[in-house]
């Protein structure tokens, strides 16, 4: 247990250094902000000294010359004006720096995620990924904005106050320094105790939420099985544990926060009063100094209270920071170009040579796949769910690294192509036609600004999407909502076709949608597909065999292997798996099959 804690604090220190290392990008700004902070603190600290001068030099001896007093008054107001102004500027500057650092971290995490491979996305739930990029970085923001700036501010203030004290009276200042050990011990003990209680509270809260969430999701089952009472008890149990943990933290806070700090304040007050009291037995005491000391003491405890209250945020932020850095250090990046051959796709000949592939390193989902698609040809992949069709596409798109065997385009290995070349030349049409928030034209053009409005329209016309787009109130500027929910699935498909055609790829990779769309759109889709394939090497996953009857080659996959290959007619004659599948889709009896001959 102890070892575990030590380890934690060790990695904690690393996390802090890594977080602080971002400050190096803002050296100048930080320096300026720091100077401003020093000035503001200086003005703050000088205030009581001015009061002391007033009390000792003028008020006590009842000496009131107008000009010096006016000057003093002006100095007093001036100092506070400077303090207010500079403090404002200082806080803003630090916040700005903090927010910019968080911005950097955020962009860094997001960029990192963009360059991670699909293998990473397969293994990481999307929800937690989103939360890493937004919520965890938000907690780091809290750390920077509140905790760090509070600590810097408070520390400088405390140093300033001590400087003022030393200026006024060395001996008393030394005596006041004696308060520091008390405070440091108090803080240290509080941090120790609160971190434990805090952790318990967090765990209980997450258990509470998990239980509630699960119960809400499974309420039908709970009710059907008449377990309401038992679940109420179970929830009640966690609820009560959570309550106990919270009560414990209230107890700790009541024992160690403001009340305890106030006690230390009283000790300080007593020290100052005794110091002057004892002096007064045989000297005349400067009341102004006493006044200034009491004033300093009063201000000294504000920063302490603030630091102590930030300690819990600090703990949470460390956990978040650790998670974010963990993601930044992830190794599962997407496969990239190897070497700098910069091969180009010229004709679009695709060759798979003895490709074997596994997602998890254990079960092979593809076994010894070899085939060639000549320029302009269509190769169709058919087979049951899990037969390996999608994996072939995933490899061709270089979504996953090829470990065994090789894939070649125009004779060059897939790894020789740059990402840009590959993405521009290979057009992928996915089953799930993903839409971005924006408008219709944005969704066709994506980020390729060199594509003109005319080309967008041409692409839409080519796939016959223009027919429904023109009927929209704002046509190409029609807004697209989240996931394109306002469009039918058929319309979304046509839009994603247009998106691919706007890129004018040399190679087409099609993953036919299984979901049925209305007949009218269906016709448009089939027509668009056959038009798109013209003059392009096409690899197509087909669920409906009717759509690929004219393919130059059909590969029938079963459990990761090619079990049959040939043209539609050849495969029908064979009377194997393809024939069965064809029968399945084309009706009750064999009559139709024979008529297709």
């Amino acid at each position, binding site marked *: 247990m102890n070892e575990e804690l030590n380890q934690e604090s060790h990695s904690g220190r690393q996390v802090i250094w890594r977080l602080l290392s971002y400050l190096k990008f803002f050296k100048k700004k930080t320096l300026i902000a720091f100077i401003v902070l020093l000035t503001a603190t200086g003005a703050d600290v000088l205030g009581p000294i001015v009061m002391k001068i007033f009390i000792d030099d003028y008020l006590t001896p009842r000496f009131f010359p107008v000009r010096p007093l006016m000057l003093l008054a002006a100095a007093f107001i001036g100092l*506070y004006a400077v303090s207010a102004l500079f*403090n404002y500027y200082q806080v803003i500057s630090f*916040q700005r720096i903090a927010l910019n650092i968080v911005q950097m971290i955020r962009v860094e995490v997001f*960029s990192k995620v963009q360059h991670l491979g699909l293998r990473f996305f397969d293994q990481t739930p999307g929800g937690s990924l989103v939360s890493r990029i937004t919520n965890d970085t938000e907690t780091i923001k809290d750390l920077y904005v509140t905790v760090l700036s509070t600590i810097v501010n408070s520390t400088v203030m405390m140093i300033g106050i001590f400087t003022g004290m030393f200026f006024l009276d060395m001996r008393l200042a030394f005596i006041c320094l004696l308060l520091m050990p008390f405070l440091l011990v108090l803080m240290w003990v509080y941090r120790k105790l609160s971190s434990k209680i805090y952790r318990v509270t967090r765990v209980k809260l997450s258990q509470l939420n998990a239980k509630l969430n699960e119960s809400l999701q499974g309420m*039908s089952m709970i009710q059907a099985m*008449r377990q309401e009472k038992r679940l109420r008890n179970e929830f009640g149990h966690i609820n009560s544990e959570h*309550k106990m943990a919270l009560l414990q933290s209230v*107890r700790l806070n009541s024992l160690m926060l403001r009340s305890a700090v106030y006690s230390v304040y009283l000790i300080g007050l007593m020290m100052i009063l005794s110091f002057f009291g004892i002096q007064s037995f045989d000297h005349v005491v400067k009341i102004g100094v006493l006044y200034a000391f009491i004033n300093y003491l009063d201000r000294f405890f504000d920063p302490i209270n603030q630091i102590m209250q930030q300690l819990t945020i600090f703990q949470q932020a460390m956990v978040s920071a650790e998670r974010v850095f963990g993601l930044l250090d992830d190794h599962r990046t997407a496969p990239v170009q190897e070497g700098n051959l910069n091969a180009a796709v010229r004709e679009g000949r695709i060759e798979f040579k003895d490709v074997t592939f596994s997602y998890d390193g254990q079960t092979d989902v593809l076994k010894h796949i070899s085939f060639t698609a000549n320029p302009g040809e269509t190769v169709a992949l058919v087979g049951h769910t899990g037969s390996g069709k999608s994996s072939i596409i995933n490899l061709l798109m270089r979504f996953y690294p090829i470990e065994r065997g090789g894939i070649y385009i125009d004779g060059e290995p897939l790894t020789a192509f740059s990402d840009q070349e590959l993405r521009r030349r290979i057009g992928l049409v996915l089953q799930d036609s993903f839409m971005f928030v924006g408008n219709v034209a944005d969704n066709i053009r994506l980020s390729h600004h060199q594509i003109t409005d005319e080309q967008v329209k041409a692409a839409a016309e080519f796939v016959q999407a223009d027919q429904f787009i023109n009927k929209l109130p704002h046509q190409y500027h029609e807004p697209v909502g989240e*996931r394109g929910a306002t469009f039918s699935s058929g319309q979304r498909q046509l839009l994603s076709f247009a998106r691919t055609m706007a890129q004018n790829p040399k190679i087409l990779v099609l993953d036919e949608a299984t979901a049925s769309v209305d007949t009218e759109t269906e016709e448009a889709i089939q027509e668009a597909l056959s038009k798109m394939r013209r003059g392009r090497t096409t690899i197509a996953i087909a669920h409906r065999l009717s759509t690929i009857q004219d393919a130059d080659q059909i590969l029938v996959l079963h459990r990761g292997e090619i079990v049959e290959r040939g043209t539609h007619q050849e495969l029908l004659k064979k009377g194997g798996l393809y024939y069965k599948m064809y029968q399945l889709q084309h009706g*009750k009896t064999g009559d139709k099959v024979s008529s297709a001959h």
Partner: protein
Amino acid sequence: MHIFIDLWWFFKQERLKYGFGILFLMLSSFLSMIPPYVVGVLVDSIRTRSLTPYGLGMWILFLIFIGIIYYFTGYIWRQCIFGSSIILAYQLRKSLYKHFTRLSPNFFQKRRIGDLMAHSTNDVNAVQVAAGEGILTLIDSVTMGGMVIVTMSVFINWKLTLITLLPMPIMAVLTMYYGNLLHKRFSKAQAAFSDLNDKVQENISGVRVIKAFGEEEAQIKLFRNASKDVVQKNIAVAKIDSLFDPTITFIVAICYFLALIFGATYVVHGSMTIGSLTSFTLYLGQLIWPMLAFGFLFNIVERGSASYDRIRRLLAIKPEIVDQPNASDQVPSGSLDYSIHHFQYPGSQASVLSEINFTVAQGQTLGIVGKTGAGKTTLLRLLLREFDLKDGQIKIGGTSIRDVTLNALRSAIGYVPQDHILFSATIAENIAFAKPEASQEEVERVAKLASIHEDILRFKEGYGTIVGERGVTLSGGQKQRISIARALLADPELLIFDDSLSAVDARTEVAILQALKTERKNKTTLISAHRLSAVEHADLIIVLEAGQIAERGTHEQLLKKKGWYAEMYAHQQLESLVSEGGGKA
């Protein structure tokens, strides 16, 4: 402030704690008046050099005494007030949970779980803050503020108090103004953050398209802009947020200034001592917090009221399905009798079921088949009384299901739903969900019946393996079989399989069906399925089409009819052949 009236029931319930809490809070405000007074007295006696060692010692002892009492009063009121607010949150969560367990399925279909979670967490927290910090700021700003002002004016100098406090209202007005501005800007910052969140969400869900089109860099650019927007909105917040401290310091400084200038005049005139002036400035420092607390109070109360209203509205929702006044407690048993004239979901116009009439004798098996959306699940859910029939009857053993209590009805029925809900617990606990006291032997027996025993033993922890969200991920088929075992353990009169064999392979299906046959002799079983093999052996099969019975009969009878059933059967035979790799025909 109506939140405090709304929460009166709780203050009454915890009247001792609140009573003591407020009393000690006031006491501690009073105690904090004393040290400045002592400082004043001591400063005067130091100045006039009339202080004796004995006097100093006494005053110091007095301060120590005050310090100790203050520490304990502080501890007590914090315990009482914050402790109570935690108990309030606990009670609210408890009643919400209890309420959720009583509400009907329709409620859970209409409301998003995320929203319900938010009510049970954020809203409860806001109410907790109102009952804790809210009370504190209310009492503190009124009593502490009042006491300081009274002490200053009665014991020191009322004229000076008046003059000195002149700038304070400006502070109150300014901070309130900042508060409003801050709230608005904060909402904008929140909105920007939620946009950013949406952006990331979209990016993660569209990762394939993004990669396929090489959109990574463009996405990073978009994200950078969205993130910049968040920064800008947050800086706008910071600009207001950072105004508080300097404004307060500056105005307080002016107060000090006034106190010193005018105080000095009084000192010169002899109507005040320097000691009292020192005490006076210390009191001035103590006024800052009550002023601020007053500003916080409005904020806390506003949020607490809105949240409490939402919680109350939620608690006021009545369950739609309840026991009839004279409902019998007797667990129904006997033949099952459906006579539905017409059914539609509440709030919907579309008819889901019409003219459904059939009888299943006790011990028989009913098969329900048909396309997705034909009404199979609805037909079964009506039996569970997830919804009530308005136009028709379902009877078990001649008694309408509405004439028995929900508890009795549910005791009679075992249910294996379409989507398999497992809880974060061990496999054994999940199987014994409806019968927590079941022995390990019983659990294993039903696990064997459901053909899941072997699978379970293959896990490292066996029956002790944790499943659910934070446990081992199970395949769809394994989940299905565990929920079958769970339903079998309860050994109900009536067992419902709502397409719950879809994810098991053909051989396992046969084994499970065989086990059911012997296990459930004399007990009624209802099976809805896509795969006809699951209902082949049923005593009666009904084919639903658009909410009506299109065909009915036994497997043989239906095959002879050459209707939808026969067609589908042939199709599926072929399909299974294909999925087996073509059967090497």
